[in-house]
Structures are given as C-alpha cells and as structure tokens.
C-alpha cells in the first residue's frame, strides 16, 4: 500500500540564476539537492526538505526560494494537514512520533496580553543613557531578616550568585547540541557576566574553565555526574521536569553518542543515553530534600541548589514543597519551552503556559511568607526583552533563554533537532555539520543579544521610573491586562487595562 505524505516545502529554483556551484548540495544534510550531470542542472527531492533555509541562505546567486508547499487536501477545519500527515506516518510505523523545539500550536501567549506602565507627569521617568540603572541580580536563598553592626552585615548569607542581567541560558546538553554550540554559550555567558546551563550531558573537560559561569545539572540519567563535575560550576540544578515534556524522561539516541560525547557522559559509544522519567531516588518532597542536601554535602554547602520543574496544574503547591525541601532556586519551565526531542503528543498537550505558572507560584510563596527562601527562574519560550521584563514584573528573579539563544546562532526552528542532522551545526554531533558554528563569532552574537535585551529592559524600566530591577520584581502595579477573562486577571494578579 502506498504511503502518501504531502511534502511540507516547495523548493523554487531560478535556473537562470543557478550557476551549478553545488553549495546547496553540500549544505543539505537531508540530501534534498542533487546534481544531474546529463542535463547539467540541480534537481531536488522536496519531500525530504525540512525548510531550514540553509541552502537558500548560502546560495551565492539567490536562486532558491523555500516556501510552504501549496499542495492541499480538500479543505477541512477539523482534519488539518498535520493531523493527516501524522496519522499516516503512524499507520505505517506503529510508533510514537517525535518532534523538536517548543509547542507550536498557538496556545494563548499571555505576554502579548499584558502591557507595561510608563511615568507621565506625576512621577518622573529616568533616562537610562545618563543615569545609573541596576539590572544586576543575585540568585540564591535570601535571609528572613538581616543584622547590621557598625555598617557591616552580621548575618551569614546563603551562597549568592551574581549575574549582570536577569537573563541566563537555559539547559542545553552536550550531545543534544554540538560542542561548538555549547562552547559558544559558555563563552558568551562568561564575557557578558551571566550563566549557561550544561543540561544533563555533563561538562566537557576543556569547557570547565568557564565553570564560574556554569550551572551544572543533575538529572535522572546522572550522565557525567561526579563530585568534580558538581564542583565545577557555581549552581547545581536538579532537573525534575522540562516544559516541553513534563513527566517523561529523554532518550539521546545511540547514533548521537560519539566518542567525545561518550567521554563526557561517561557511557560507551553508540549506547542510548536513557534518562528515566523520574529520578529514582525522588518519589516525594522528602526524597527531593534528601537529594538537595546530598548535593549540598557534595559541594560543601558552597553552591545554591536549583530545582527545575515543568509548569503543570499544581505548580504552586509543588513549588511550595520544593522551597520547603531546601531548594535555593526554583526554575519553572512552561509549555512553550523547547527540546531536542519529545513525543509530539506530549510537547503539544502537556503542561501550562509559563505566565500562569509563574504568577501562581510567586503569589503562593508570598502568601506563605517563603518567597525570600528561593529565587525563581522562569523559562519557556521567551522571545524578546518585553517578555523578560513582564516575567520579572510577574515575580521572576531571572529568565532562561533556550530557543532564543539558538535562534541567535542560526536556528530557524525547523523542529528536526531529534534527527541528529542540523544544517546550521547546532543540534548535531556530526563534525561535518557542527564545524559550521564558529564559537568566537557565535558567542559574540549571543553577547549582542544579551546586551540589546538588557538595554531595552533598562529603557522600559526608565520609562516606568524604576532604576533597579529589584524594585520591579513582582511589582504587578506596573502591569495591566488586555483581552483577558476575570479568572485570568485574578490568577495573574493584575488589573485590566484602564483600571
């Protein structure tokens, strides 16, 4: 029986412009382009095209246009092209469909329905170009009260990690992304004064020199986790869940486990790196507390311990338990968070938007009087500086950027991360592809991104008459909602615009 799948993309080649240089052929890891020597022309297998635009970007004569394929079934609002395509594949293979990056299903984006305040007449705005603006942020447990004697702080503080701007790089593990990509993130974090996150793939030895700017993760697979690794970063993060796939683990396919990846993860070459769904030493808040304290012991109580959870229905109650278990930082990852590979059914349907989870967690911890006991890092699809500042206003101490950082170094969101082929050299361990990223140039782009967002944040803060990000944290008076229901306004803790 024929399996017929409509191609996703149409490749238009202007044969007058094409000079048969074969750049497209060499750039495409999916073997879409090929050369027909009889007719001296380039041809395509468009059913294999993923729409990553690499060939079009590198074509020296701009001969290529890649666009959504106009092929269509009879229009049907109930059965989309996607549904038919997925179902057909499953009828053929009998297996779970995998996808990459974050949810693309058009769930409500609350950032777009929240608007910021600005000063007019009754309070002066501040010009960030000529007046100091503070975006520095300290991550870690804050004391209930402090004691000062002779101008000196007498209270012993829990370990605090300073970042120049409340924007960190999210967990992206080596093995899922290329060495060059993780090196770019590490370099950028160091240069700018923020943090990158190893994910659960371990920290390659040559990158340990960036440890002062590293969050090292301890996830259910415990890959590459030993005492030296735990002590090589400044924060240890326990990964319970990920926004793109709450409740499930991960499988790094054996094909991606090359010699270098195997050395870092400390598993043999070619073996699947299976991360179980739960951490098998954590079946309760008490068990979580045990691991938090085991990690504090292993790092001599010198490093804050973060716990990363996906945003789910009872996030507020869970977060309260996590704080009481002794976490110094809670990282909350919403439903739009990215991934290198996740079952499509889960990515698209499980979890809640980060805006709602963040607001609920912040308010719950305040009500319980324990908000100071942990910093909150929000994650899951931050697209611009406005999203970041709104998150701070809803109570986040900082945010994690994953997808946005990858876009800054070339990602075009083709969602094929799970194939091990990435024509932009990001989500692959194939050396021919990964060398397409030059960490010196890519890290500068990341620094530029952090810098421009930070400047924009300062501009917006100045407009509100706020000169320290600390004064904006959880300050919902600066937010208003548009086009939101009462329950949403209530949950977010903001008033409707005009009120």
């Amino acid at each position: 029986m024929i399996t017929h799948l409509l191609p996703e993309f149409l490749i238009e080649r202007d044969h007058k412009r094409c000079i048969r240089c074969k750049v497209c052929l060499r750039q495409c890891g999916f073997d879409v382009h090929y050369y027909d020597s009889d007719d001296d022309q380039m041809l395509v297998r468009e059913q294999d095209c993923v729409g990553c635009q690499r060939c079009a970007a590198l074509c020296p004569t701009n001969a290529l246009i890649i666009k959504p394929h106009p092929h269509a079934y009879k229009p049907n609002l109930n059965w989309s092209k996607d549904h038919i395509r997925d179902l057909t594949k499953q009828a053929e293979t009998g297996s779970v469909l995998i996808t990459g990056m974050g949810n693309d299903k058009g769930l409500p984006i609350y950032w777009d329905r929240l608007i910021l305040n600005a000063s007019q007449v009754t309070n002066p705005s501040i010009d960030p170009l000529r007046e100091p603006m503070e975006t520095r942020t300290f991550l870690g447990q804050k004391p209930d009260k402090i004691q000062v004697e002779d101008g000196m702080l007498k209270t012993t503080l829990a370990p605090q990690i300073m970042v120049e701007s409340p924007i960190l790089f999210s967990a992206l593990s080596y093995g899922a992304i290329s060495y060059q990509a993780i090196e770019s993130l590490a370099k950028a974090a160091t240069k700018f004064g923020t943090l990158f996150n190893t994910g659960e793939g371990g920290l390659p030895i040559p990158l340990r020199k960036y440890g002062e700017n590293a969050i090292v993760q301890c996830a259910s697979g415990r890959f590459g986790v030993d005492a030296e690794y735990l002590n090589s970063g400044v924060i240890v993060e326990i990964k319970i869940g990920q926004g793109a796939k709450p409740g499930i683990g991960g499988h790094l396919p054996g094909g991606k486990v090359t010699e270098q990846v195997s050395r870092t993860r400390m598993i043999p070459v070619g073996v699947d790196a299976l991360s179980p769904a739960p951490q098998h030493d954590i079946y309760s808040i008490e068990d979580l507390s045990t691991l938090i304290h085991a990690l504090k012991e292993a790092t001599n109580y010198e490093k804050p311990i973060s716990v990363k959870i996906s945003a789910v229905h009872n996030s507020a109650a869970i977060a309260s338990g996590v704080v009481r278990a002794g976490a110094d930082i809670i990282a909350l990852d919403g439903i739009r968070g990215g991934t290198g590979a996740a079952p499509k059914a889960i990515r698209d349907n499980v979890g809640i938007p980060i805006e709602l989870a963040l607001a609920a967690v912040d308010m719950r911890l305040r009500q319980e009087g324990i908000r100071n006991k942990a910093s909150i890092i929000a994650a899951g699809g931050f697209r611009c500086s406005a999203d970041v500042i709104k998150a701070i206003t809803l109570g986040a101490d900082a945010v994690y950027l994953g997808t946005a950082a990858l876009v800054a170094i070339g990602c075009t969101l083709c969602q094929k991360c799970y194939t091990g082929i990435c024509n932009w050299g990001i989500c692959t361990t194939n050396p021919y592809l990964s060398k397409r990223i030059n960490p010196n140039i890519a890290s500068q782009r990341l620094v530029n991104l952090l810098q421009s967002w930070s400047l924009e944040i300062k501009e917006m803060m100045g407009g509100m008459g706020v000169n320290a990000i600390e004064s904006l944290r959880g300050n919902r008076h600066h937010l208003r909602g548009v086009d939101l229901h009462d329950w949403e306004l209530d949950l977010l803790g903001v008033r409707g615009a005009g009120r």
Partner: protein
Amino acid sequence: MTLRIVPVKRGVAEFNAQNLLSFELNGRVKEAATQGANKIVLNNIFGQRYIGTRLYHQDPLEIEVNGTPGNDLGAFLDGHRIVVNGNAQDGLGNTMNNGEIVVHGRAGDILGMSMRGGEIFVRDSVGYRVGIHMKEYGEKQPVIIIGGTSQDFLGEYMAGGTIILLGQHRGSNITHKMRFIGTGMHGGTIYISGNIKNCHLSEQVTVLNLDKKDHNIIDKYVRKYESYFRVSKNKAMNLDFKKIIPVAKRPYGHLYSH
C-alpha cells in the same frame, strides 16, 4: 564555617555521633580529614545521612561506621573506604564514583543507583531497584556484590557495570523471589547464583552460560566477599551462577519514529 579542633591520634579520629545532626557529623568528619586523619571511627551512628559525601578532594580515608547509618551513605563517594557494622538504609552508594563500601548487614532500596565506579559489598540481602541505571566507561567498572537476595527490579535501566548475587543466607542457599529483573537493561552484566524463574526476567535481557572470563570475575569477588565477611573455608558456598545480559544496546529505539 568555623573549624573545630577534632582529636586525631596516630592518624585515627574517633567520634561519638550521638545527638549529632548529619550536617554536624559530616562537618566534623571533614575537619578530621583536613587535620590529617586517615582513619575515622564513628560510634553510635543513628540515622545520619550522607556519610562520606562531603569528602571530595581528600586523600583516601577509611571510615568505620558503627550503628545504623541513614539514607545516601556514600552518595557521590569519591575514593574512600567505608565499613558499616550494622544495616544500611536506602540510597547507599548513590551516584558513587570511586571507593569501596562494605556492609556487615543488609541494605535498602536503590543501592548503587547510577553508580559509575567503585565496589559495594553487602553481607546479607538488599531492597528494591538495586543497581538502577549503573553505568560504566573505560576503566570505570562499578561492581555490587550481594550475599543474599534482592527485591524486585534488580538492575533496572542498567547501562553498565556488574552485579553479583550469591543467594546465600547463613551458610545455605535461599530462594530468589524478585521479579522484573533487568527491566530496561541496556548494558552491564548480572550474575545470579540460585534459581530464578524465566517469567521473572524482563523482556530486555537474556540468560547465558558462563565462560572462563566470567568465572575469573566471579572468583575474584567471591574471594573478596569471603575474606571481608570471614566466610570459613571449610564451609565453602554452594554457588551455581547464571549470567544475565541485555539483548540490545538500544532497547526502546523501535518505539519512536519521525
């Protein structure tokens, strides 16, 4: 943290752990190690956790634990030797990297979870999910030797290393009752002496006969077990091993498509 003077005599530091919190106890152990102790004796241990965990970057120590230690004994352990005169609880040798733990008694659940190096000897039996997600890489070959039997899910998700079950109790063979042996196993080896039912093995494993190399490995560790737990030579254990290994390196690869 203030440094407290810990009495160290001829390299040995001895503590009464009564009424000490885990945090305090482990702090004193670290201080003793810093002050040059090479052997530490902990008396009246009563549920204190993470013994040995804070000793990263210390020279190899011998730690004697008298009493009943709490969870996560030797978690992330990096190269010390811990002898427990008593029973151990859950999480013993959790993500252990190097060293040796010897338990003169029994131990609880998830023993050797994600263990990547070193050796664990347990005189008696152990709880559920022992050796879960153990790994190996190059010279790092973790080994768990259990004198008695285990509960269900032995070697679950196992990715490397060796588990040896002797199936003995006070000099005689005991009947194994554990189920779901090697669920999701994709690396490493389990040797079990005594009868196990096929229906208690997971679909991801297969049973093989032993070859000479296997006998050499087993002999080495059985000899160590006999000497650590003073099993008398004239009461030689009646051992008959089966070897359990995974069928595939990629047990779940076929479940996914693009």
